[in-house]
């Protein structure tokens, strides 16, 4: 399937969806509006629309200005560039300074990719292991574990950061290492645990009993039956975790100072002496574009999954 047909298909799907919503709005009794209600909806539409513009416009403005030359921007920062240039992007892409620990944007993005993906992989896997065992196996201490998890999730701990820093630096010696970051991200008893726990708890055991009778080992059952069955919730929490780790500022800022991720690195870049603001704009545009593309393709998946993951807290 070529790209153009898949794009066409994508848009066709979107169009069909829109048409369906439109149809519902017109024909479903739920959405029939009269008189005052209509006015209310028009007013609300305008408010909502203004809100929407407030989210889009600043980014568009930044993107447009990132195509201007520095001198044009300093004279006129409102209109469309007279002379489009890619200079800012090239400079931004190559830029590195002591402030950014001599890392370029591509290195920051690389670090973000490494941390976000491996962190997600590890924490989702670890959570699945823990949730599966606690949900499906009888063993001494099981209720204790579950009780502790619930307890720790209810208590709002404030300010464990200083202690974490001390522990990472002086006891574990994992400060400023990628391994340390993944270790921090690899918790198995958080929200993800709860979500997967409730999934596994409701999962029918008969299928697995059958496999057991056939002589399959517990590992085999877990990897080839249980995990694939949990694909839905696993995708859901992976998506949320991934976004969370990608955007995380505090952990890499404190525990990986010498190798900034993009979320930290852009701040460092803004603090270093750039020749022109347009370079920063280009850097912002460069980092937003992939996120926005991924988001607009997977927005439905992402949002559905966030609502699943966010609610079970």
């Amino acid at each position: 399937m070529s790209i153009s047909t898949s794009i066409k298909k994508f848009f066709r799907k979107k169009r069909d969806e829109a048409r369906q919503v439109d149809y519902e709005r017109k024909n479903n009794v739920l959405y029939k509006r009269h008189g005052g209600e209509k006015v209310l909806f028009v007013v609300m539409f305008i408010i909502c629309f203004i809100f929407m513009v407030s989210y889009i416009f600043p980014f568009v403005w930044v993107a447009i200005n990132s195509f201007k030359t520095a001198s044009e921007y300093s004279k006129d920062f409102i209109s469309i560039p007279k002379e489009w240039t890619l200079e800012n992007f090239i400079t931004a892409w190559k830029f590195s300074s002591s402030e950014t620990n001599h890392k370029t944007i591509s290195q920051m993005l690389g670090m973000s990719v490494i941390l976000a993906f491996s962190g997600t992989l590890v924490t989702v896997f670890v959570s699945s292991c823990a949730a599966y065992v606690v949900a499906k196996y009888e063993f001494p201490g099981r209720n204790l574990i579950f009780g502790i998890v619930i307890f720790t999730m209810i208590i709002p701990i404030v300010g464990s950061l200083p202690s974490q820093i001390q522990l990472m630096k002086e006891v574990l010696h994992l400060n400023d290492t990628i391994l340390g970051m993944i270790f921090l991200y690899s918790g198995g008893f958080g929200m993800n645990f709860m979500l997967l726990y409730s999934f596994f708890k409701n999962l029918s055991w008969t299928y697995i009993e059958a496999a057991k009778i056939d002589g399959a080992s517990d590992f085999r059952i877990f990897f080839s039956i249980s995990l694939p069955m949990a694909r839905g919730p696993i995708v859901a929490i992976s998506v949320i975790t991934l976004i969370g780790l990608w955007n995380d500022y505090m952990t890499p800022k404190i525990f990986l100072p010498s190798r900034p991720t993009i979320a930290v690195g852009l701040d460092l870049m803004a603090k270093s002496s750039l020749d022109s603001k347009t370079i920063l704009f280009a850097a912002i545009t460069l980092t937003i574009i992939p996120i926005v593309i991924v988001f607009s393709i997977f927005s439905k998946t992402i949002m559905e999954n966030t609502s699943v993951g966010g609610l079970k807290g």
Partner: protein
Amino acid sequence: MKKNAKKILPIIGLMVLSGALAACGEDDREPGVLSIMFYNGGYGDEWVKEIADAYAAESGNMVDYVADSTIASKVEAQLTSKNSEYDIFISHDLNWQSYANRGLLANLDDVYNGETIDGDKFMDRVLPNAAQLSYFKSDKDGEAHYYKVCLTQGAGGFVYNADLFKEHGWEVPTTYAELTSLCAEIAEANIIPFAWAGGGDTRDYYWDYPLYEWWAELDGLDNLKTWSELKGKDGTYANGFDNFDPDGKFKNFKQAYKMWYDLVGTHPEYSNENAQGATLDSAQYLFYSGQAAMIPYGQWAKHEIKKSQGNKEFNFEVRMMKTPRVNATSDYYNFMVGFGDSMIVAKNSPNIEIAKDFLKFMASKLACRTFVEKAQGPFLAFDYSDIDMSDLCAKDSYVDSMYKILTETKNFTLSSNSPIITGNSDIDIQPWIGNNRYYKSCMANPSENTPDLVFEKVYNYARDNWRGYCLNAEVE
């Protein structure tokens, strides 16, 4: 979904791989190579290069250096790591007393007891105040040692466009009264007397320099020194807020603010339009392009302004004036901006001896001259009286003006090792407590920022928050 996933997976894999490759490749330190990290600011980096080269030629030790504007936030991590990546840190706002307290800094007694390459005693090369400031008793071992070397003896005040002055026949003012009438004249000629920047990356604190100088003149240097200890009338730190009493020990600073208020605060036409919101760039441009006659600045003015304008030379003569006196009969005073800037050596550095050697080299006549030449104006915190600067002064009028200020005025500093200051390193306490300056708000609303109102606020703030500072500093 599944098809999508299959397509995306290899892409993700590729990204991870490329990222991993890009993220690897850390440099290891070469043994025996001195490594310096210094603040990336107005002095530029030419001076380090030049001095490092000279030092390498002299001693055979290689020197690596890096400029960083976030140095203050990086030092701590370096000092507490197993091996610092840098041996010497050079910057303002280094929390060196706290580092010394925790035993993170190399003891520099050897440097102060040593000799420079010229055969002079290092101690003789250091300015008297500077040695005193660098001597500190750490909590860790309870002994006093030298832990830093001061970087610069700067000057702060009004940088002016000498050609413009000549052209219009304006005399460089020697007193505040003359400055007042000069501003009226300048404004009449449709030129902005002062360009300054209160917006964005604000530099409104450049106004502090003339204010301090007026304060010093009114208060006398001895009083100022006592003031900067931040002890109360009864000699305790607990009542240190006494120092902010506008009718008592702070009276003269209030008077200095009043002078500013009368001259600038109530005369918006003497500043660039909307100065309180103007960016540094725009203020620099006004001065650079000759639209403004003066710009309050520190010693790094020439280098920094030039750099901001694409490194193009000024097309006029730039000078810094001795800050006009309050009284025609008294001395000129100069606030040594940057006197608190430090050069410190990491205790965990593998090259402590080389680092010490380099610091001694910094005190040499050669290094002192090089610094002035390459940083274009600022002077190191060493004695220049034996150094022939005449050729540099002749070549660069700005250097000449700086030299005159440093040699012909009473130099002073507000830096002190008072525990209130060292125990609250992240808070600005003196003299604008809580880092609240009123220049900007005064421009926006003069009637609510009269000297009386402002200093009442300052005093109240000091009194209310003082207990917190004492608690932080663990003093009674």
